[in-house]
């Protein structure tokens, strides 16, 4: 869904990659090449979000952030992913899905929590429909806070995580 192709028009001319973004691109590409042979697969699981985090993750694939050119791809089969990204509150309805998905992950199981909701730090209060512990029921490799985290923060945090692998 997110795969991009080259275009002939100059619609991208208003989107200018600043020095930080260029640096992030270069370093991420190096890390993905080193750790994942140049091809990194994400499986995104929304466990009860407002769709803000998903939209910011989707923005990573737009012509400005263009992470597809770094070798990043979204997959829809959790057995075939390198990193599981979890967004949103941990709802009772979704808990079983998250558990099943986590169990299916190949070793080493890598989980990144996106946004304030999985940590129960967003302004939502607990209800019968939520797991009060949030994402902490599962082992998490990296937390990226924010409501929602902006694309650049996502890239910075991803780089930090990949550097520590």
């Amino acid at each position, binding site marked *: *869904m997110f795969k991009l192709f080259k275009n002939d028009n100059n619609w991208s001319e208003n989107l200018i990659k600043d020095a930080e973004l260029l640096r992030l691109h270069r370093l991420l590409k190096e890390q993905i090449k080193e750790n994942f042979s140049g091809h990194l697969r994400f499986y995104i699981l929304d466990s009860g*979000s407002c769709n803000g985090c*998903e939209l910011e993750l989707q923005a990573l694939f737009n012509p400005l952030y263009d992470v597809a050119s770094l070798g990043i791809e979204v997959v829809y089969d959790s057995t075939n992913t390198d990193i599981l990204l979890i967004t949103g509150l941990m*709802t009772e309805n979704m808990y079983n899905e998250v558990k099943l998905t986590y169990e299916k992950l190949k070793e080493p199981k890598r989980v990144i929590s996106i946004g304030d909701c999985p940590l129960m730090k967003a302004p939502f209060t*607990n209800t019968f*429909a939520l797991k009060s512990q949030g994402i902490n029921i599962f082992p998490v490799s990296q937390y990226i806070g924010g409501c929602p985290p902006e694309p650049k923060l996502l890239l910075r945090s991803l780089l930090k995580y990949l550097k520590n692998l």
Partner: protein
Amino acid sequence: MRLIARFAQEQEMYFEIITVYDKRIIKERLNKKTPALISIAKDYPSSVWFERKISDDFGIEILYSNDARPLVKHEYFPKDIFPMRKDYAKLDVEHINSTSSKEGNHGVILGPTHPYLLESSEFQLFDKNQIILHFEMMPFYKYRGIEKMIEGLTFEEARPIIERISASQTIAYQYAFLEIQLQASKKILPEMIKKRHIFLLEFERVMNHLSDLSTMCQLVEFFDGFFFFSNFVEQGRDVMKNLTGHRFGFGSLSVDDDFLDLDDAYNFLFSLEKELLKFEKWIETKEKVLEKLLLLGQISKKTAESYGLVGLMARSCNIALDRRKGNDFYEKHDFYINLEEGGDTFSRFNIRITEIFTSLRIMRNLVKNNILPFFLGTAVDGEYFSYIESSAGELMMYISLKQGLIDRFFIRDPSFLNMQILPSCIKNSEVSSLGLIIKSVPLNVSAVDL
């Protein structure tokens, strides 16, 4: 009469059913011992989801219904718990370890993660030779219990939750909530502040239409179009951040803040209008792209009316339904309704473009003004309804306030009605066009799942 919403609330001695039509609101009382409600699904097919939700939330039996399956409560949720009843206050529901109820089901189940929607959701699909014979969408897949969460809170405490029900429609939700606060405090919003809020509401509409158009272009493999729209989405998010301090506009409809950078916003809007005019001419030459959209996922005007579709889903079937129509403020600022006749994906693509032009025209008329101090004042107990035309269609919000606290909070998102048309408009389509049809319908799962 058009059905807008049907929901229940618990009073001390009885259950109250509130049915909201466009011309009147009807209230019924049901005894608490053996509560039973007569279905109106025969006349209003879209009432089925409302009634199934009432049954799940309060344990009210629905009589003469053709669909008594649970809607909110999924397979793991205990059957004997009715979470919206006042005496239910537990925070942890022990979900049952169900042996999957999906056994014996020979259809294809897609979800919770699939390429057709960003949010978790589940589709059930039956096909033969790649033609879809039956399609069903399972709502409340990631049910957060928002209605219950808001009960017992003050307006101030509820505000940050309401603005986060759905990020892509946060401005519409904030606006609907503010309308209720104004009603409760018996105040009228000064025109200058209203202009700023409508500007943001229209901006949100433009952003959501651009985002939908970008995905639709991608799904028909029109990648130049995808680049065109997704560039404007990214620029627009930055402009929204300059305006409100947040890329989606969380916390932006207060009554005393001013814009941060309106010049930047105007530059973006003028550039969008100029380029969109060029795009409109350019896409006319892309016959292969247009062919892929034509006659796909078609809905007749009659079906749209019977399902009570709202927003661009109604307007693309030539139904002149828009909360902005007849509204003095909008009429004064050069609004006129946009309609398409086809009821297909092509019409839903086109109407998004024409509605962007309409929003841009309205926004141009909403010039910057200095904001004078304004205070909402004390909220008075009572029942309040607000209706907002969000980017996805008519949004209804209801709040019952008792002793200054929210006693019942109910939202009817446009997607709650529009989602119910999916089985009809997907049936007999090719499996390969499933994504495009789904993306042509403005769906907001988080606002339905609550």
